[in-house]
């Protein structure tokens, strides 16, 4: 094979560099997941206290959120996907966290065998660990702050009277998922052309 001209060599090296940068460039949006899993449980909590058939509030809302989550991810997969190791790692953390939370909440709803305070502490701790691990991988201080919110809720759940745990979880869900999800959605949309 004949040796290429200098200009061609430079263009080939530039192509390699550009394609690698393009591969690493993440255009995926995840803010909606936090919004969905913030607003959904808040609706379930409101339903439990204000609407008829409170025992089915959690199973119905969680099932609806799970289906909606799955449908939205499936729709996105149709547009093509390139996954980096980082995306796979963060995806694994949140997939495992989501499954754990679903099993604990649905399990306790169906079996009715949970101790309320322990369940709140465990759930807050699991979400805090997921946020902090994800924030370290992605180097996001805002997400680490969100992890601190969940850790604070975890400690508060150990101290506060049982009657206050419902309000505590509402505030934590709002700050930890709805506010964080709104910030992430805004960030993703405002950086979409970069």
């Amino acid at each position, binding site marked *: 094979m004949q040796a290429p001209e200098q200009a061609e060599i*430079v263009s*080939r090296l530039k*192509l390699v560099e550009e*394609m*690698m940068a*393009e591969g690493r460039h993440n255009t995926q949006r995840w803010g909606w997941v936090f919004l969905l899993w913030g607003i959904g449980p808040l609706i379930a909590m409101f339903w439990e206290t204000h609407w008829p058939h409170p025992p089915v509030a959690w199973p119905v809302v969680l099932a609806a959120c799970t289906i909606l989550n799955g449908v939205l991810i499936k729709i996105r997969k*149709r547009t*093509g*996907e390139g*996954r980096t190791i980082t995306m796979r790692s963060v995806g694994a953390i949140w997939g495992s966290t989501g499954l754990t939370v679903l099993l604990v909440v649905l399990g306790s709803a169906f079996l009715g065998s949970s101790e309320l305070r322990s369940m709140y502490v465990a759930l807050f701790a699991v979400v805090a660990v997921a946020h902090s691990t994800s924030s370290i991988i992605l180097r996001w201080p805002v997400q680490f702050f969100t992890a601190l919110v969940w850790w604070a809720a975890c400690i508060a759940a150990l101290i506060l009277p049982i009657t206050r745990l419902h309000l505590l979880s509402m505030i934590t869900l709002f700050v930890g998922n709805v506010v964080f999800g709104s910030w992430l959605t805004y960030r993703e949309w405002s950086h979409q052309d970069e």
Partner: protein
Amino acid sequence: MSEGDPIPELNPIVHGQLRLAVLSLLSAVDHADFRWLRDKTRATDGNLGANLAKLEQAGYISVNKSFIANKPNSLYRITPAGRKALAEYVQSLKKLLAGSIN
């Protein structure tokens, strides 16, 4: 490159512009599907398919075929041999460039 050094050989499989773009893209990700590669390289389906087949034949990429919503979905990954070939190709280019400057 000094005068005594031989001119480095460029791997003809990697040298193809589209194949080089695909290998470079796949080296930066864990895996990618056909549509993503097509969008990033701006290639046509036929051209991309033919070049992916060449890379697969050379053992530089692997493909995992499945179905999503009854539609075929192929996930491509760069193999260790593909990563090595790309690294060697880039090294050869750099040597050639140094040689052409000197």
